[in-house]
């Protein structure tokens, strides 16, 4: 969701943050995590793992909000999220500059 101006309480709001960890050798390339990540943090790699599958890699470092959906939907137990330090969002992240112009 994009805002058209900077919210007044932006300094007070904290966004949860997660660090995504991927065990690429256990992945079978089902793409569930890439498809269902609400923040589009992941994308499929161009490389193959040892078994010949493409595996997810982190595309947008820092965008993960620790919802754990990838961890729960992964059928191969090959991705998990560790809670990181919550942070204040930056104005650029939440404002849709295209709409303002």
């Amino acid at each position, binding site marked *: 969701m994009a805002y058209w101006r900077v919210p007044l309480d932006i300094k007070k709001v904290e966004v949860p943050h997660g*660090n995504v*960890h991927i*065990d690429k*050798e*256990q992945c*079978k*390339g*089902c*793409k*569930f995590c890439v*498809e*269902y990540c609400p923040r589009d943090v992941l994308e499929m790699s161009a490389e193959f793992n040892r*078994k010949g*599958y493409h595996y997810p890699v982190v595309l947008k470092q820092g965008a993960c909000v620790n919802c754990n*959906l990838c*961890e*729960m*939907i*992964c*059928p*191969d*137990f090959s991705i*998990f999220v*560790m*809670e*990181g330090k919550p942070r204040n969002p930056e104005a650029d992240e939440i404002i849709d500059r295209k709409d303002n112009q």
Partner: protein
Amino acid sequence: MSNSKGQILSNKLEIPKSDELKHPMEGYLREERFPHIWCSTCGIGTVLTGFITGLQKSGLDREKVAVVSGIGCSGRAAGYLRLDSFHSTHGRAIPFATGLALGNPELKVVVISGDGDIAAIGGNHFIHAARRNMNLTVICINNFNYAMTGGQAGPTTPEEANASTAPFGCYEYPFNLPFLAESSGAIYVARWTSLHIRRVSNSISEALLKPGFSFIEVIAPCPTLYARRNRLGSGLDLMKFYHDSAIIDHNADTRDIDIGYQDRITIGKFVDKDKPTFLENKDNFLKKKLGDKFIQYTGQNWE
């Protein structure tokens, strides 16, 4: 993180040191057997994740939980869990679990098995365990065919769906499993798909805490046989199909929630009621009949 006995040492929200970064469910899995045998995009692994998170949420003691599974793809689930678990013969997961639950009333026994195991070969055991209100939680992973043996038509294959023993399409009426469970006397009946994984895990934690026969059907994609024979794409395409066609309706009448071929899937928690279990009934009845001569069985005083 886990020690050599598989006991969980720390809360998963703690950030471990980088050299000991491990999957938070690793203590619940026999990781020496991984990667598992399930196909790419199969939904059974997702349901297993849902079970483990449901078990964590329910707060039950791991020493007091046992998992029994039957034969089939989903029968492997018991072997991958680092709990007391048993991989029983075809269709006999529920009788084995019944014996376990009666022999040690303190145990919470969970049956994780497939539609072929629970509704076809073990169908009779299923309805009788539900009738007696045995203290079991049954998780039925429904992929609409016998997947491990080559995609034969089973009791849940929808009409018109292609299977290796129904090359022109299946012409039998399929079972409506929530209706079967409710009419047999189950106290908790829910149906989800493997896409609704948070609801699956909440439902499993609720069912684990309910004494009596609880039944959860989880619809899972079978990319290798059901989807391939019916030209439905990969498991990801089936997940997108569940997203589009699954409708959550907790008040739905279980008589009306048949699953047609690539048709609307009604999901939700359909039944949640309380009823005395088999052991409570037995104890109360015999206490009334025998009076002072009655000795209650606790699982320890069996001699």
